[in-house]
């Protein structure tokens, strides 16, 4: 699959929702824990060597599963292979919880579901579609089912 690396690199330089130096271990067997600067930007998690400006890699966070592994550690895995885990080690339980919460919210799909929920709730309470005033009530991304690809 082709993608523009420069595009992703530029995205990695955007303001982050959350950024910290964490221990990171790749999914392959025998991977070693390494210190990485981990940066959450929109629905991507970038990771950098601590002294480098360009990211080593990126993880798209759509349909990811965030699991607590230890009191101060969590993992990210994906739907097609839940056992293939990227491990992260935090410096405290608090930091771990903070990251887990942020990562679970960091998908476009999560926002879409929230929006649909709010829209319905407001409609039930007020009898009005809150999106109508913006003229966007018919947009596919705000509908229950969206388009099926």
């Amino acid at each position: 699959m082709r993608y523009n690396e420069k595009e992703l690199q530029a995205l990695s330089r955007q303001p982050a929702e959350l950024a910290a130096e964490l221990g990171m271990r790749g999914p392959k067997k025998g991977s070693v824990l390494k210190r990485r600067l981990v940066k959450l930007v929109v629905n991507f998690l970038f990771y950098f060597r601590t002294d480098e400006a360009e990211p080593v890699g990126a993880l798209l966070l759509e349909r990811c599963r965030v699991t607590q592994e230890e009191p101060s550690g969590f993992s990210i895995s994906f739907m097609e292979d839940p056992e293939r885990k990227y491990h992260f080690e935090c410096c405290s339980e608090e930091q771990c919880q903070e990251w887990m919460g942020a990562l679970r919210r960091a998908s476009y799909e999560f926002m879409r579901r929230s929006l649909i929920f709010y829209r319905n709730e407001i409609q039930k309470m007020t009898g009005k579609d809150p999106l109508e005033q913006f003229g966007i009530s018919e947009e596919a991304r705000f509908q229950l089912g969206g388009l099926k690809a």
Partner: protein
Amino acid sequence: MGAMKLNERSVAHYALSDSPADHTGFLRTWGGPGTPPTPSGTGRRCWFVLKGNLLFSFESRESRAPLSLVVLEGCTVELAEAPVSEEFAFAIRFDAPGVRPHLLAADGPAAQEAWVKALSRASFGYMRLVVRELESQLRDARHSLALHRHSSWKAAGGHCKPQAPDHRSLGLENGHSPSKDCSPMDLVEERGSRPAGQGLAEWQGPASHFLGRRQSPSFPETSYFSTLHNWYGQEIMELRQRWLQRVWGSQPEREKQDGP
């Protein structure tokens, strides 16, 4: 693909999954990532799928793997002068220096307009803006509702101080932990007086069909928020009942109030 890693297998899986697509259609493409322009200049015709802020292309509708990915962040979409007098063309231009614009052409004016619109609103930030707007509208609607009930109880001279909790601390912002000093939160956390499962069961029925995949890790958070909503509604009704009982003298002593 270059020095930077990406979880490509997961990305491809997501592209092919039944997650909602915001727009789909055939487009001709030139000079996108890794594609040299075709010799005749008419572009390569591909099947495009827009999911959120991700634009995927496929060789055909039946392809089992995406050809390319364009991330729609930090870019603008505008009508473009296509090569070889191509009509209905538009370009995705990136703010970042050194990133080539992605040139595309639709089959007709309606498709062109629809694509430009869809792509312009594809960013994560746009969605986040709308979500936050609705969050605050819902907060306001609930606040008004609570105030309305508060004033009608007050007017009737009730002993029971109605709960009008600070809605900000109801955890309406998805995923944020509720503040400890808000009574509804304490009750939900205790779970003694009110099984959360009850609220969940109520909600799972109508809402589950649009809240999508159960296995999503974010699902519990949305359900928590929704459980609060149902619980809050019930709590208001129960407080009102207790107040009514006191007014009509069925209880000899004041019940311990639920509260902070």
